[in-house]
């Protein structure tokens, strides 16, 4: 990096800092994004009729930037994460991200105008990790809770785990990943994830 670029990046950082000083509170952020995304789904006939490509795009542009996939993948892989080379870690993150985006998109496409309630955030201003709680009301059954575990980063609050009905998505992959690594190694797990993603891609 030459000196001019360095100075320029410093300037950029200087401009970015004040913006993050008045950052969005985590619950406001999640609420805003989910309202925005659901509003788009409600209006988009293509998505309602099952256009997966379009909904994946929506998730990638609106939702993805607010997730910390590095941390999610590290948690899901567990102790083996430290044994993975940085190249392997990168591949794991990429494949896991693709799988989660795909899964999340499918879940979203079955959304039908249910009411989503956000509960008041129980957190101190100094907290760097919070849990944003919400629930989807449905008739004739207990509401489904969706909790977002979030951490404070320099670029705003990021989600690092989602719990649906008390089931942590990240924790739920841990056993599978551990088993997979035990039998076929880290590269084997990467291959398994990649072929799973290819298979899902082929279906659309």
């Amino acid at each position, binding site marked *: 990096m030459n000196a001019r670029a360095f100075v320029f990046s410093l300037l950029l950082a200087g401009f970015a800092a004040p913006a993050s000083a008045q950052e969005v509170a985590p619950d406001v952020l999640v609420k805003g994004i989910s309202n925005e995304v659901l509003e788009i789904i409600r209006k988009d006939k293509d998505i309602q009729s099952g256009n997966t490509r379009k909904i994946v795009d929506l998730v990638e542009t609106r939702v993805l930037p607010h997730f910390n996939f590095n941390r999610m993948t590290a948690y899901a892989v567990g102790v083996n994460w430290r044994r993975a080379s940085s190249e392997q870690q990168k591949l794991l993150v990429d494949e896991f991200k693709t799988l989660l985006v795909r899964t999340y998109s499918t879940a979203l496409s079955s959304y039908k105008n249910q009411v989503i309630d956000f509960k008041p955030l129980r957190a101190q201003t100094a907290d760097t990790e919070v849990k944003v709680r919400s629930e989807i009301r449905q008739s004739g059954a207990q509401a489904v809770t969706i909790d977002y575990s979030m951490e404070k980063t320099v670029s705003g609050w990021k989600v690092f785990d989602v719990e649906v009905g008390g089931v*942590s998505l990240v924790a*739920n992959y841990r056993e*599978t990943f551990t088993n997979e690594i035990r039998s076929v190694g880290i590269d084997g797990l990467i291959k398994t994830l990649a072929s799973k993603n290819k298979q899902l891609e082929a279906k659309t």
Partner: protein
Amino acid sequence: MNMNAKGMRVSGCAIFALALALAVLSGCATTASNPRDPIEGFNRAMFGFNEAVDRAVLKPVAEGYRAVLPAPVRTGVTNFFGNIEDLWIAVNNVLQGKVVDGVQDLLRVAVNTVFGIFGVIDVASDMGMQKHNEDFGQTLGKWGVGNGAYVVMPFFGPSTVRDVGGRMVDMYVDPVVNEGNIPLRNTAVALRTIDLRANLLDASSVLEQAALDKYTFVRDAFLQRRRNLIYDGNPPPEPRAALDADEQPLSAAAPAEVAVAAAVPVVPPVQAVPDAAVAETPVAEATTPVIYTMFADGVALKTPNAVPEPSPTTAVRFADNVVLQAK
């Protein structure tokens, strides 16, 4: 008629007993990679059976049901059975010491039965009385009864030893199962089952996509979910020991390393316990990382050859972690 109802219950019990007996037997012959699932071999077989039944019968019927009946009608069916269920939920809430919740459940039944046309419309939810999720297995859990082993029951699916017991009590008092008019009872049980499956169609398609190994995914989700339900949505952090058990450190047993381990008669030096012993005693589990790390780093291969003959299980464990089968 009552005899018949009893008969059905007895045969239901017989199935459970048979399943448990099978489970215990097969438990001897399967691996226990997860301490919470000691009868994984049996469970996987049952899971496969349930999946086959679902694919062949239940899922197609539920899809047909969803295609034929409009959403409001299906919601009415769900609400109707949910209203009957609320009675037992109220009892369980009281048994768990949550009297206020129990009273609310009873109010729900009263309101929904009177104003909701025998429970078909869930008026109470609109009035702010939220539905709860309770059963006798949760009550037992609240009373301090541990999960016990994970068990996949034929037809009923994922459960635990405690929840199998809980479910038997649930069924014993279930007004639908105990209905004296047999054709009516059978129709009601069938309708309730199909409606339940239809409500899960979206979830099961998400599951198909999300899971690498569906059996493990369903098991771990089920165990997490039950724990969450017992604590009514606010479980304490998982005890450290349980997490450690999930994180049995294992090196990436790359095929090359396995081949080497199998071919070269080398066993880790004295301070590392031979693997066969490790497999037998859970206490010694803590020493496994040493062995694996050594193999991973190639250190073990440099050790002097003045070491005992390796047991065949060593190599097998590296290959597949199926120590018990190799014995």
